[in-house]
């Protein structure tokens, strides 16, 4: 079986509104409803709705021979329910075809796998339940962690939860001479299969597609099919992992990205011996070649493929550690608003906005941040977190008083 495995990440954070020092202790609503709603609506018009319509046509047209998979974060699903039921419905239709797979992740697109096993399990279960509720009882079998973060240990936890496979980055420093185009096994529990992103070919679509200074511009299906054919025969799986917003949002419709995707399956079927499969089909069908050792966590971000985009400077480490100091206390508090805010505050994007790696990947970072500087992002987050800490303390006192 030689196959292409498409996985698209669908995620939008709950952005925090401008929250001043004077608001601490007074204003307990942190979320920027207006910009969250308008961003969801904008991306829905440019990407989610047209691309979902296109994919539905393609899946129907090829009668199930063309398949894709999605991971839709829980915080994004919440926003679809609130602001874009039409988008949610179009995803439901796609999943209902039986040829579109959904992956499990953490509900809040959180970094908790790095710090707390119990919180990680809870986040995964919550997301599972949300998918089940919104997608007609759907039960995901493959896991993708926030930002494709993976280590042997995280894989071990995922295996324990009963998943058959997990996705991560085909990071050069992990693979060495090895190819990402095979199925691997977790180093702790070989029952967990690991799929690695082919970042070369994935990023040709996701990042370089409309880059006019790229020597291979413009990217055509003919070129892409040639590159696929250049993959050595024994390499079976081509994992193309990317943000779903690539289609229409990062790469605008005018670049021809939709047409490219529309004609890709036909070119693949006609000129290559590849097909299309979903992650579950791949982990069940392909034979793993070996274990993959990842002692230190990797991710799909930036040149380094490490965690420094979220936990690389003092600001981020401070915000992260102060947040997770609260875990045990929050768990005891049965209050829907505290629980909601605890979830939303964990979203990795908040830490990404505080990244100060200006010079290497700053351009990509500033594209994704609505703050003028990482310092502004830190101040705003810490103000909110300070108020949240006060609320948690007050609830704690109430609990003690009741006992």
């Amino acid at each position: 079986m030689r196959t292409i495995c498409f996985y698209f990440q669908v995620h939008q954070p709950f952005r925090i509104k401008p929250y001043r020092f004077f608001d601490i202790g007074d204003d307990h609503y942190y979320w920027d409803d207006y910009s969250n709603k308008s961003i969801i609506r904008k991306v829905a018009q440019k990407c989610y709705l047209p691309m979902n319509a296109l994919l539905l046509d393609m899946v129907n047209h090829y009668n199930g021979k063309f398949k894709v998979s999605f991971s839709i974060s829980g915080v994004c699903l919440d926003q679809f329910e609130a602001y874009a039921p039409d988008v949610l419905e179009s995803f439901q239709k796609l999943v209902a075809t039986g040829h579109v797979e959904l992956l499990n992740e953490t509900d809040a697109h959180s970094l908790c796998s790095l710090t707390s096993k119990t919180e990680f399990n809870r986040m995964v279960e919550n997301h599972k339940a949300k998918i089940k509720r919104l997608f007609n009882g759907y039960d995901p079998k493959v896991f993708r962690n926030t930002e494709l973060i993976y280590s042997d240990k995280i894989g071990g936890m995922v295996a324990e939860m009963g998943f058959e496979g997990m996705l991560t980055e085909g990071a050069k420093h992990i693979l060495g001479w090895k190819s990402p185009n095979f199925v691997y096994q977790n180093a702790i529990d070989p029952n967990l299969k690991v799929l690695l992103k082919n970042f070369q070919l994935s990023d040709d679509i996701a990042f370089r597609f409309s880059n006019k200074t790229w020597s291979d511009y413009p990217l055509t299906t003919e070129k892409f099919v040639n590159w696929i054919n250049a993959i050595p025969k024994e390499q079976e799986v081509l994992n193309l992992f990317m943000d779903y917003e690539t289609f229409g949002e990062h790469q605008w419709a005018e670049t021809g990205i939709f047409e490219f995707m529309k004609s890709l399956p036909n070119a693949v079927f006609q000129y290559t011996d590849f097909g299309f499969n979903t992650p579950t089909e791949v982990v069940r069908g392909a034979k793993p070649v070996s274990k993959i050792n990842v002692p230190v966590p990797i991710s799909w971000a930036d040149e380094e493929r490490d965690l420094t985009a979220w936990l690389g400077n003092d600001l981020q480490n401070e915000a992260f550690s102060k947040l997770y100091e609260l875990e045990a206390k929050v768990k005891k508090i049965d209050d829907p608003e505290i629980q909601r805010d605890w979830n939303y505050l964990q979203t990795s994007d908040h830490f990404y906005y505080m990244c100060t790696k200006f010079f290497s990947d700053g351009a990509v970072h500033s594209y994704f941040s609505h703050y003028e500087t990482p310092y502004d992002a830190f101040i705003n987050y810490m103000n909110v977190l300070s108020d949240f800490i006060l609320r948690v303390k007050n609830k704690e006192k109430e609990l003690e008083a009741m006992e």
Partner: protein
Amino acid sequence: MKVLMFGWEFPPHISGGLGTACYGLVKGLVHHKQEIIFVVPKLWGDEEPLADFVNASDVVIDYRERKFKKIWKNLTYLEVSSFLVPYLGPEEFKKYTDYAMHDRMDVDESVFSNKFEFSGKYGKDLMKEVSRYALVAAQIAKSKEHDVIHAHDWLAYPAGIAAKEISGKPLVAHIHATEFDRSGETVNQPVYDIERAGMLAADHVVAVSHLTRKIVIEKYGVHPDKVSVLHNAVLDASIIKSDVRKKVPEKIVTFLGRITFQKGPEYFVEAAKKVIDRDPNVRFVMAGSGDLLNRMIERVAELGMGTKFHFTGFLKGKDVDDMYAISDVYVMPSVSEPFGIAPLEAVRHNTPVIISKQSGVAEVLRNAIKVDFWDVDAMADAIFGLLHYESISKMFKELGSEELKKLKWEHVAAKLVTVYDKLHKEQP
């Protein structure tokens, strides 16, 4: 006495303490029946009619005057030599100079026009405005009768010198801040040169504190007999009753000012850490902006006190009052502060203050804790003490209003009038 006074800003359009001080001084002088012609580069029309205001932008210059040509010759070098922006940090300054460099590729055609539109801002064309302002000053000195000339800070010194050149009346140079206060030991030479020229040309120099007087004598070589001290005062000595209540249970310790070298923000951060280690029920607030802001944020994160140490950014208007009102302690750890009016504002809000010994205000404010700016242990002790031993805070609050009553602009102006009288009599 008729005073021809040159300032750079006047309320309500101000960006620093200079405008406020000028306002207070003018008010005090009016109280003592002095007539004032107050010149600013730009008038906005909503200034309080305390003086005969002259808008430098409206003055038509008669270039045929021979003396003017001489003055202009001395000034052109100023214009081209530098683009200094004294109230900006290096980064903002660079932005401005970048603009300025490009702007200056073409020759200034306004040199030969009669009128010049001043911006009155501390902006990219500052030097151009300073020298142009001097030319206008000469024209005013020629057309407006006066007995004494008074110039505030270096921006107005070339104006004061030019006016003196025309009318021959005695000149008072008023020092609100020196280049050493603004930049530490790495002074901008052109600014220093202008300051020094102003002080040497002046018949008398007034400094806002003994601290500043000492700098004037030691660093600018001005004869001690020529320099006297004129402390600043408060416009309104009443205690402000605010109905703003803080919304957090913890006590609040506040730094409020520009976050620059001069204000010593890093000592506040280090002292905060020492206090929080002993008493977690305190929040620290750093209000303001400036070129050291990001470094302070990083340091706070590094010290792991991000949920106890807050940054508000630049505050204005009611937010400033509210900040004072909800503070339990106000700290001004300035490395070098010629005077520093902010602690007096804090006193007006009944907030106990800690000030550095390196500030002029320490010379007049008795009911305050005074520490060396670098002594973060002493600063931490003082903060802790004011937060926990209520008797000191209580005493400061009770005595604060009495103390403020002594710090009135009328008193300052009275002293200044004696200086004017003396200069007037000594005139040949």
